[in-house]
């Protein structure tokens, strides 16, 4: 879909609140993400960043507000249905299938693109076999793109952390999502790995036109790669602006550095 016919924002979050008992994790947060935009969500620990991502991907259902994707309301969908709409994500603590090979992990990412026919699959025959090979070819393109050819057959659980993060990105990309949610894609990486990951994220955005929402703590990365930065604090949105403006935003500085007492 081109930008022109897209019209409104791809993702609309309107006044969404999520609460766990008495704790209000998200308090009437509104947020719009345009097609092909890279939006970073930042905020101190416990600000509700991951909760927001979980609400978008259907793990939590907001008790007020609505979430719309591509113009359609999807507030109360379950995660598999959210996936079917074209939303993929990665997790803060890598959630790979540890017992499966890298190849199988990424192949699993294409699940929704595959058609099921139990008998043919049991015989591994005809269309079932062809389908398997077609998707293998598609997965190989992603493997090339993310430069992980050497670890195809390695069980995911045996990989070092940085590579696991990359494989998780590969698995999310395998679904060819319209919207990609990344929960701290660079946490725990060294500078070199971070640079690689930044490059991959920007490449995904530019080559495939994938819209990206990411949570990140590294301010250098956030300022570099995002078109817009959303700041959460105690479950509220306190700022939403391009990176340059965020840098000098009073509320953001207060949230991060503490409020100066005026004497």
């Amino acid at each position, binding site marked *: 879909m081109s930008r022109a016919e897209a019209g409104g924002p791809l993702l609309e979050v309107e006044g969404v609140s999520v609460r766990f008992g008495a704790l209000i994790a998200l308090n009437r947060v509104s947020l719009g993400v345009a097609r092909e935009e890279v939006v970073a969500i930042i905020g101190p620990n416990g600000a509700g960043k991951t909760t927001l991502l979980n609400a978008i991907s259907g793990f939590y259902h907001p008790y007020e507000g609505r979430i719309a994707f591509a113009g359609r309301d999807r507030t109360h969908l379950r995660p598999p249905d959210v996936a079917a709409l074209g939303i993929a994500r990665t997790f803060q603590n890598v*959630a790979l299938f540890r017992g499966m090979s890298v190849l199988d992990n990424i192949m699993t990412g294409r699940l929704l693109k595959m058609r099921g026919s139990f008998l043919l699959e049991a015989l591994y025959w005809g269309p079932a076999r062809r389908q398997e090979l077609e998707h293998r070819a598609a997965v190989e393109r992603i493997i090339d793109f993310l430069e992980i050819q050497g670890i195809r057959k390695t069980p995911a659980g045996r990989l070092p952390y940085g590579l696991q993060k990359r494989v998780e990105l590969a698995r999310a990309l395998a679904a060819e999502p319209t919207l990609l949610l990344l929960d701290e894609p660079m946490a725990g990486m060294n500078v070199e790995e971070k640079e690689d990951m930044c490059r991959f994220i920007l490449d995904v955005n530019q080559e495939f036109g994938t819209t990206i929402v990411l949570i990140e703590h590294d301010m250098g990365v956030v300022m570099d790669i995002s078109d817009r930065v959303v700041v959460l604090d105690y479950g509220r949105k306190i700022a939403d602006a391009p990176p340059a403006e965020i840098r000098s935003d009073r509320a953001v500085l207060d949230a991060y550095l503490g409020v100066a007492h005026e004497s």
Partner: protein
Amino acid sequence: MGRLEVIYREAGQFKATYASDQAIFPIVQDRVVVVAIAVVAFVVPPLVAGEYWLQAILIPFLIYTLAAIGLNLLTGYAGQLSLGTGGFMAVGAYSAFKLTTAFPQLSIVVVFLLSGLVAAVIGLGFGIPSLRIKGFYLAVATLAAQFFLIWLFNKVAWFTNYASSGTITAPHRTLLGVTVTGPNASAAARYVMALAFVAVFALVAKNLVRGRIGRSWMAIRDRDIAAEIIGVRPLRTKLLAFGISSFYCGVAGAELVFLYLGSAETLAFDINQSFLVLFMVIIGGLGSILGSWLGAAFILMLPILLTNLPHAVGLTMSVALQKQIELMVFGGLILFFLIVEPHGLARLWQIGKEKLRLWPFPH
């Protein structure tokens, strides 16, 4: 090529297509050996092996392998712990009995398959709790299936056609003119029948686990939350595993009565069967079809070996003492294997193969 067949080397075997890379046995030597084993297994034992070997060792081995593959699909691949195997096997056995008596014209192959289907439906029902409960708690829930089903078959006389003894008996049936069940069936015929079933269904299981269905099972097993966001529907996926697993167990249960025991009561399907098959899966290797074969062989043949070993090496001891020692050694060996290689015999086999690829060089 002459050398290749002798020495386990894959040098020079380049995979030019994804199809060849995704084959079950990508290495030429493996393919040759597996085909050879299959041919030999179908031809040699019926001609050579005596009644004792076929009846006491090979037939139960094939039947339990089928059950172990079934449980491995559920527990090893889909990660759902089940202690209901004995119950699902009983469903298969009693269904086969009812079907053969109700429809005497029905081919025995169809009877086995239908019995598997009945077991699959029952398994689906008892799989529903798996959406809400996991791990040991699910095992306890499947234990309910085990006890309920056995109680049902004991209590309702209809299942045994109101036989006063409460036993079900395999009737006389032929396949292609050869008697395969009933008191007159030769061990060789029953062996070939059991082998054909387990060979076909092992291949089907392998096809399922290397494709879309197997990947969604393993995804649920390894990280259910990540699986959901990819689009795996937990209930549907788990129920499919329960259904297919129970189908395998059901067919194995029918075979146990029709091809091995000849007649049986519910005692043949008690909780010990569930544990026995679970041990086979764990010892053989969770999440491995090959492991199911190895595990069944280990659990069934080791006691026989232990029974005959003292006599073979010239030791004489009282039968009671020998029985006790046998149990102790058996238990000890299970513990030893689990400590040395918790991933089972299949992993040992894999490590052995990797070493063989480098042999005679250490690295």
